[in-house]
């Protein structure tokens, strides 16, 4: 217990925990929309596709500032999204194949660029690889500030366009007929989701980022039938997982932060799927059992009356 309180006072822990919590909250809110739009895996694609952008930004600008690297990530993430849209629009190739192709090719390009950087004399590329696996412990205070700023912007946009995003996600044709352009809203929402993914990369890395986008939203969906409750709950689940994962990895030796966070959030999904009232698996089993009994007694009664 003592070590826990000592931890709370630790400056590094505070920074990392705050960063992970922010990441959880932001991806929780945006993830709700991604999951409801059945675009869950776009997160996986965009995060992989961000790698060449990160390395390219480093090669071109020679800076390892988080802002600049993330800007590169944003550019290549958006480029990949556009490629996927173009392929699915103009050919018979389906979304999932286009996604798998584009993300793996972009990732391959990222690796090529990484090996290229290694050859440049006097360039330390160690900081770049943290985007692949994520390195929460390397979060600096200014990184957290950046995350907070982006997060605030995203949350503000979500609140401002709440009505439109909800309507568009539920029924885009109807939204269109009311004069809310689906093209504009699609662009807005996609850009917001991409931004949320990008700012999470350095904490959990490209592979685990998709879980941060999907899992809190899926868990939250089980407990409520209201979108706003879902978004808030999802942010809460994301934030709690971020905090718990960071704490666990600080207390337990040799427990990497990113995977620990994913473990926490997956646990929340499991609990929600099993125990959520009304929707959960246990509740359904209970209801089935009850119906079966009811049917049995009714059936028996029916037999009696027919005699």
């Amino acid at each position, binding site marked *: 217990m003592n070590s826990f309180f000592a931890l709370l006072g630790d400056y590094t822990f505070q920074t990392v925990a705050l960063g992970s919590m922010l990441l959880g909250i932001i991806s929780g809110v945006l993830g709700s929309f991604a999951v409801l739009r059945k675009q869950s895996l776009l997160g996986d694609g965009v995060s992989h596709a961000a790698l060449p952008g990160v390395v390219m930004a480093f090669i071109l600008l020679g800076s390892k500032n988080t802002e600049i690297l993330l800007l590169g990530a944003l550019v290549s993430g958006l480029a990949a999204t556009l490629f996927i849209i173009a392929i699915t629009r103009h050919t018979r190739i389906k979304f999932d194949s286009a996604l798998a192709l584009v993300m793996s090719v972009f990732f*391959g390009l990222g690796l090529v*660029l990484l090996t290229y950087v290694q050859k440049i004399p006097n360039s330390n590329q160690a900081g770049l690889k943290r985007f692949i696996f994520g390195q929460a412990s390397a979060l600096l205070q200014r990184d957290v500030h950046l995350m907070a700023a982006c997060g605030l912007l995203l949350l503000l946009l979500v609140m401002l366009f709440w009505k439109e995003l909800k309507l568009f996600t539920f029924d885009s044709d109807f939204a269109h007929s009311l004069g809310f352009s689906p093209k504009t809203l699609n662009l807005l929402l996609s850009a917001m989701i991409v931004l949320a993914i990008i700012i999470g990369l350095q904490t959990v890395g490209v592979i685990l980022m998709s879980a941060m986008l999907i899992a809190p939203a899926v868990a939250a969906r089980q407990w409520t039938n209201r979108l706003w409750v879902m978004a808030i709950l999802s942010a809460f689940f994301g934030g709690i997982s971020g905090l718990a994962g960071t704490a666990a990895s600080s207390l337990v030796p040799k427990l990497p932060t990113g995977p620990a966070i994913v473990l926490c959030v997956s646990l929340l999904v499991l609990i929600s799927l099993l125990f959520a009232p009304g929707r959960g698996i246990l509740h359904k089993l209970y209801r089935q059992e009850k119906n079966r009994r009811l049917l049995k007694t009714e059936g028996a009664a029916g037999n009696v009356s027919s005699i």
Partner: protein
Amino acid sequence: MSPQFEIQLIAVTVAVACALPGVFLVLRQMSMMSDSITHTILLGIVLAFFITHDLSSPLLLLGAALMGVATVWLTETLYRTGLLKEDAAIGIVFPLLFSLAIILITRYAGSVHLDTDSVLLGELAFAPFDRMIIAGRDIGAKAIYTTGILLLINLAAILFFFKELKISTFDPMLAAILGFLPGLVHYGLMTMVSLTAVGAFQAVGSILVVAFMIGPPVTAYLLTDDLKHMLILSSLAGAFNGIAGYRAAVVLDVSIAGSMAVMTGILFLLVFIFAPRRGLVSVLRRRSRQKIEFGKTLLLFHLYNHEEKVKVQEGVAIDTILLHLHWHERFTKNILWRLQKDGGIRIENKIVKLTNQGRQASLQAYEELFMQ
């Protein structure tokens, strides 16, 4: 054999071995499942290692293949609860299993000489260092044999079960009725994908396995409609990507696996743009040609209708056409010019009149449209 030749041989073997099952993944819209499997096999390898404590044990392959199948099963079970969508199920299962693998590796890093970097990213350049030695004789790089066996297994499976794979891919209902057990075929295919991912990741890294599995089939998909041709073209495309990627990597002195993935992207891009019939250029060209043909028929038909309505063959002013059809002026002029050249209409003093030939053409188009 020189190391350069060995590397290229391995690259080609891996690429073809991946492309074969990939064809079915693309056609069954399960591409993202390959992404999932390539990540989770890491957990299978780690768990099997805990049992055998031997990194070269074939049990590792078995563990990884089992984990691949388990991934598919877990994802489908989750999806079948009806509580979440299929894509969300994929996106929850593989990060979880992957996280478990990373945690296990990190915790027992002292005893596991498994490097996450090499599993995920792979390095083909090191493959020739691991020799296959039988009875004291060096008979080539080990990877040549492992990937070679993999390729043979995949080839054999597809040759033997071609009919079953084909029918359960295009019409699972019919396959079930005919007694082909599409479920069994499905899991068989997933086992093949898992085995392939395991065999390939040492050479190219697990993330890029996806590029090899999906890239060539998607490229071939734009070139042919025939399943057999698609399998052959995919293999050829994979082999080309392997060799060209290696050459490029040598010239630029960069990651071989990465370079092969980039080559996959470049080849796809070229086919995407220039493929006959399905390529971007020919699609756009066809669309604009269709638009003009369509415009011609539409205008003729419009004039014909007008004649029928007013019962006089007096023609219609160009301005009236613009007003009615609501077309761009340039497009309308283009269509009018083309029709006049074909002899379907006459234009006198900005009045458009149907010729007899135009009337016939219009009637014919009408019949084609409605009497089919």
